């Protein structure tokens, strides 16, 4: 039987926040994806549309990043909305960043193919890539939960609310 190599730099360490699964690469980049417990996935909804225009003045699609130091990237805080998802039954969900950092990119593939979010939430259906500040890269994960902690919380949680 083949084993994955013990050291593989492209692998991710996953931590959880609310209904999101945060995948941290060893170079501190974070890929935000939906956790399996998100209502959209749990309750088998279908997605009508995804909107990156989170306010009148701000669209995540207008995020233009240039150069190695990622100039021009929108800075997001824990409570910054990344996108709004509208399901076919008109329920709306807002996905929040949950960590602080520079927004490097949002997944434009899910605009065209919203199904990706449901079929491949952990890979092709990712939502955004965020780069935390170098100085904060350790502290930023303090409020996030490991898989064990997360599963502990989930099992205690009562029936979910409509908005995340």
């Amino acid at each position, binding site marked *: 039987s083949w084993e*994955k190599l013990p050291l593989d730099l492209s692998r991710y360490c996953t931590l959880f926040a609310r209904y999101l699964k945060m995948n941290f*690469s060893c170079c501190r980049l974070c890929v935000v994806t939906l956790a399996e417990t998100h209502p959209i996935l749990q309750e088998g909804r279908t997605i009508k549309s995804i909107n990156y225009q989170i306010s009148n003045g701000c669209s995540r699609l207008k995020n233009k990043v240039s150069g190695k130091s990622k100039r021009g990237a929108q800075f997001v805080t824990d409570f910054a909305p990344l996108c709004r998802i509208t399901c076919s039954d008109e329920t709306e969900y807002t996905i929040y960043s949950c960590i602080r950092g520079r927004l*490097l990119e949002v*997944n434009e593939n899910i605009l065209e193919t919203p199904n990706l979010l449901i079929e491949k939430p952990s890979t092709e259906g990712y939502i955004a890539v965020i780069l935390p500040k170098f100085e904060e890269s350790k502290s930023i994960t303090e409020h996030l939960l490991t898989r064990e902690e997360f599963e502990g919380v989930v099992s205690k949680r009562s029936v979910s609310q409509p908005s995340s």
Partner: protein
Amino acid sequence: MLPLKEKDKPIVKKLLSAGCCARCVLRFCCVSVQAAYRQAHQVPFCCFLFISNVSSLKKSTSKPPCKRAKPDPTETDGSESGSAALVCVVCLGILQDLCGPAQAKKIAETVKAENYQFDTLVLSVSLPAQLCVREHSCWLHVKKEVREKGLVLDKDDVIQVKEAFKWIIQGLVTKELVGVAVVGKVGRIKTLKAQPLFTFKSKSFLFTLAAAYQLCLLCFFHFSRHYPCPPLEASSGCTPQDIQCLHVSVFIAGRYNKFCRSLPQTPWVIDGERRMESSVEELIAAPILSAFRADGFNFSSSGREDVDVRTLGNGEFLLLYWMVLLTQVIYTTINDSSEKVKVRDLQIVTREAMSRMKEGEEEKTKSYTALVWTQKAIEKEDIAFIDDIKVSPKTPLRVLHRRALAIRQRVIHSMNARFVDPHHFYLGLKTQAGTYIKEFVHGDFGRTKPNLCQLLKTDTDILELDVESVDVDWPPPIPE
């Protein structure tokens, strides 16, 4: 006599009264006859004679009216400007008593002590920053007179202190080091050369080199607000600080193989702690460093592979350049001391090789073998592939923290597959340099398009990766 003309008189007069030594006077008169600078005690005397129009060279009789009396011609250490402590305001003594036989002897002794084998010597001089400020000040002082002497003359025609110093001392050093040619410039590097570096220092630390350069760009009006014209008297001259012998860089090219899956390219140290043992760089350079007296090295390779990738076949090519005196290259030292890395085709090349190597980086093709895992069970027919796929990957997340976000199109020239079992197969690829193979296989969150997951319609992952060959003809192979 000195090659000075009537037109030089105003310049000579102005400089002597400002406190310049005789050789600096010659410099500002743009005298490029090297021999003129070498006559130690005769130079100042002739200058005085020149301006006082006395044609006779009789040493014993009348003293010239100038305050700076001629020196006693029996003094042999070349110290000029009469009253003992009068240091030239421009060269701070470097062209006065610091370029005589005594200094030459010191240089020769230092070189001999280091025990090199060499044919040619290049002398380099390092001067304190304030000298260029003094030079500029003096230039502004006599600019008008120099231009009147010859309309085309400018600051560039003034002989530099370093040049004059070398003209004077080179001959003296040659005499001390019998059989060695001391040259001003380095030509093509055929044999190895040693380079003594003669450093001067002065007491004043007023100027950093950067500030000095800025000052020297100013016109009289602005310059004189910061520093007087002509330059101030100096209480003490320069002292020679150091004589260092440096080796000329040697460039060595070759090819290397990496047989180990847990070896990084360069030492992997985070927060002072070493995370992985050794590195390609250390394994190749270290045996050579200990065999020869190398001061340092730079390891440059045409491509870097990850820690967990092996480089097989002819190998990746490398360029090692370092300051070392090389008498012979030893292959066995490297190839026998480690199973992880092997080198071949090591040869001495020129500096131009650097650009040659970097050129090849974009155009070359590389061949890989990857061990791929698939989630869905596959059959042999599923892995028959098409050639010449153009991949448009976004910058892989793996490197995004240190590279710009962009899409760099790359070509995969051909692929072939070897079935292993329903969930594994070996994928051979021949791609353009710079193609991220791992991301092509697992898709990198769908950011690399097209990718193997899409082509096979299943989740895939990469378990192992080997570089089979790097298809470039350089450096030329050396028969064993």
